[in-house]
């Protein structure tokens, strides 16, 4: 057996292959729809992309990075679609950003399952005013909230990373026309964690802590029941000190999502998430977004999000068709 190729040939071949591969990266980027942006909507968009790929001849290239990264990518034409966990900013629209809503996501206040006043919280709930007082540190002891002997300092955790959920929570706490900014919230907190998962973990470790989480961290992903070591804080919507039949929908994810869909749970903290592009959506991206706003909506609830209401969907579809 003689070898009829040299090591140099092999290396040359490898080099050519690598160059071609790289060229491929730059050359035919059009065959895949590229998406990047907010981590909040990421799981849902991945599910949508998988389903869409099965029936259509399109592939997807999806990455996270945060809403701002997605927007900056899409404006620099590095991706076709940006996922946004918040409404587009004025200055972003000025740069040509065009966004349509895709679904509603929700956060909820969270406490440890062994919270000293958990029974009272679950029976009476907390009003927006009470929650605001807790997060702005006017109330610092769990005992102050209810008529109990409990004497336990409240620890407040927030988010250290830029988080649309945290922003919406600040909007909600501030009430009608006064929103607390994310930075104010960060300053009031005892400590801030980087990401939803870490906040959930911190709440799970600390009996006296309160924070907020996406509902996918509160209810079990499979069963939709309350199984982990954190519990949602029911909101006493009318502030009468009790949790009436209508205000009590926190036992399962299904019940909770239904309440969000019916508009009983307030928005904010429930909030719309958006898909956006630089100018109008083009070609495959346009078709995908169109599909998301029609057939795609039926998969939303199973994944822990809330589908858009009829009216809003119609509006989004018209917007999409008309372009910016």
């Amino acid at each position, binding site marked *: 057996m003689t070898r009829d190729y040299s090591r140099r040939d092999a290396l040359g071949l490898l080099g050519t292959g690598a160059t071609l591969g790289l060229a491929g990266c730059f050359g035919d980027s059009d065959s895949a729809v590229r998406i990047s942006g907010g981590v909040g909507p990421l799981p849902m968009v991945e599910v949508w992309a998988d389903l869409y790929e099965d029936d259509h001849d399109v592939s997807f290239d999806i990455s996270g990075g945060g809403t701002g*990264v997605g927007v900056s990518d899409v404006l620099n034409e590095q991706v076709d679609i940006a996922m946004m966990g918040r409404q587009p900013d004025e200055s972003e629209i000025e740069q040509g950003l065009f966004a349509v809503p895709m679904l509603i996501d929700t956060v909820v206040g969270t406490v440890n399952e062994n919270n000293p006043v958990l029974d009272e919280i679950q029976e009476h709930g907390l009003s927006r005013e009470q929650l605001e007082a807790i997060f702005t540190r006017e109330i610092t002891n769990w005992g102050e909230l209810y008529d109990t002997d409990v004497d336990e300092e409240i620890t407040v955790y927030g988010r250290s990373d830029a988080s649309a959920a945290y922003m919406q929570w600040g909007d909600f706490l501030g009430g009608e026309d006064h929103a607390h900014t994310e930075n104010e919230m960060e300053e009031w907190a005892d400590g801030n964690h980087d990401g939803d998962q870490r906040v959930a973990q911190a709440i799970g470790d600390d009996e006296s802590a309160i924070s907020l989480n996406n509902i996918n961290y509160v209810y079990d992903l499979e069963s939709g029941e309350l199984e982990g070591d954190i519990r949602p804080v029911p909101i006493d919507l009318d502030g009468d000190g009790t949790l009436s039949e209508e205000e009590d929908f926190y036992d399962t994810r299904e019940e909770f999502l239904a309440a969000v869909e019916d508009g009983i749970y307030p928005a904010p903290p429930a909030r719309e998430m958006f898909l956006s592009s630089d100018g109008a959506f083009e070609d495959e991206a346009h078709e995908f977004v169109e599909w998301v706003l029609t057939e795609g909506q039926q998969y939303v609830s199973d994944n822990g999000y809330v589908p858009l209401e009829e009216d809003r969907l119609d509006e989004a579809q018209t917007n999409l068709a008309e372009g910016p």
Partner: protein
Amino acid sequence: MAESTDTHRLGRRLRIERVSELWLRVAGYFAIALFVLIVFTLVHRSLPLLSEYSVVQMLTSTDWNPEQNSFGFLPAIVGTVYVAVLSMLMGTPIAILTAIYIAEYAEGRTKTLVSSFIDVLAAIPSVIFGLVALVVVVPLVGDYLAPLFGSSATGLGILTVSLVMAIVVTPFMISLSVESLEALPDELRETSLGVGATKWETIRSVLLRAAGPGIFSAVLLGFGRVFGATIVPAMLIGGQTQMPDSLFATGQTLPSLIVSDFGELMSIPITQSALIFVGLMLVVVVWLFNFGAMLLQRRLRRRWQY
């Protein structure tokens, strides 16, 4: 005929010589070009911010609230300095003592074992230190250390980050210090012992001096690493851009400020510009540090010549 092949061969060799020289030069200049490009990008992208706000005002303002267009960098600067200084205060003595032990006292298998473990420690990614610290150091500081000083901190904060960063950079400083101690010629030790000095006296007044410049630059490089550390502060500092009022207080460092705000704010031009300016500050400070270290090291070497 033969002569022409010879000239041909010589010409070929010279050509190869020239080509390889060119290659090496390009590779060398590439590094410079890269640095210039990075600094240029940072400066260019910071300009929108610098043209609208005064640098002095931003550097001395404590109000960081990008949503309302106020950019005060002082809290992050103070946080960074606190963390860097505290980590070095805790890490340096340990690093130097360990280095002396490994270089001068440890022998045989113990020496191999200890020094190889330190190398392994230096190779652990810092995110792992961050994770372990979240589970171990944060509760330790929050539940035991803070109450001891009458503070009700949660365990996230400046002190926790400094503790962890001290652990992260120590192996690195040890390795470098051991190297400079071991590079000293044996005659130094023999001469000193020969005139009747004890081992500790030899180490203290001869070896540490001779290896001084090396150890000094190890410490400064360690300082630079703490200064630019990103993931550990981002995980453990508590992410509050306010002036820390105690060691247990939460805070922010310059790198963690970039990391935590980058995700949502890259798309708003003025905030992006502010974050890039933070990057520029980091590069300039770290560069000044390295430059200063180089100058000082040269001075020291001249003074402590043996």
